[in-house]
């Protein structure tokens, strides 16, 4: 499974008022890569679907929160 995050590096100017954020991330969920959902995809059980937020594992897009992704965001 490929990672669902991509990074980009904003321009940092010497006159930036705030501490620079060198790395920023954005989410690329699976539905961007599926043109039209094929039928009969494997499914979660009802309970799992409720917890994952989708019925099909292939469309699952987790949110891991901010802390672990980019060092630019966390205040040391």
């Amino acid at each position, binding site marked *: 499974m490929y990672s669902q995050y991509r990074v980009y590096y904003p321009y940092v100017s010497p006159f930036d008022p705030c501490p620079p954020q060198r790395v920023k991330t954005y989410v690329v969920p699976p539905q961007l890569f599926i043109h*039209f*959902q094929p*039928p*009969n995809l494997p499914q979660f059980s*009802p*309970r799992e*679907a*409720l917890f994952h937020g*989708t*019925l099909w594992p292939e469309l699952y897009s987790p949110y891991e929160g901010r802390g672990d992704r980019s060092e630019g965001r966390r205040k040391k």
Partner: protein
Amino acid sequence: MNEPKPVDERYYQLLHQLQALDFVLVELTLYLDTHSNDADALQQFNQISEERWKVACEFEASYGPLLQFGLSFSGYPWQWNDTPWPWQV
């Protein structure tokens, strides 16, 4: 009036099961909107909605109506304004 007793574990189990089934029905509804000739999904949708109907009836038989305005039956006396209210569950 005696102090209302808290509901038992089965109440939450049934509600949780109902919630899971409802979510699956929502997903299947959205899927079927764009895949109207997918027979398997339609068959699954009908089967799960029937299953949901059973769970709802089982819940309402012991804990009172889930919906109002005729969408659910109520026992005697009128159970609609009994505790727990939705935010107390």
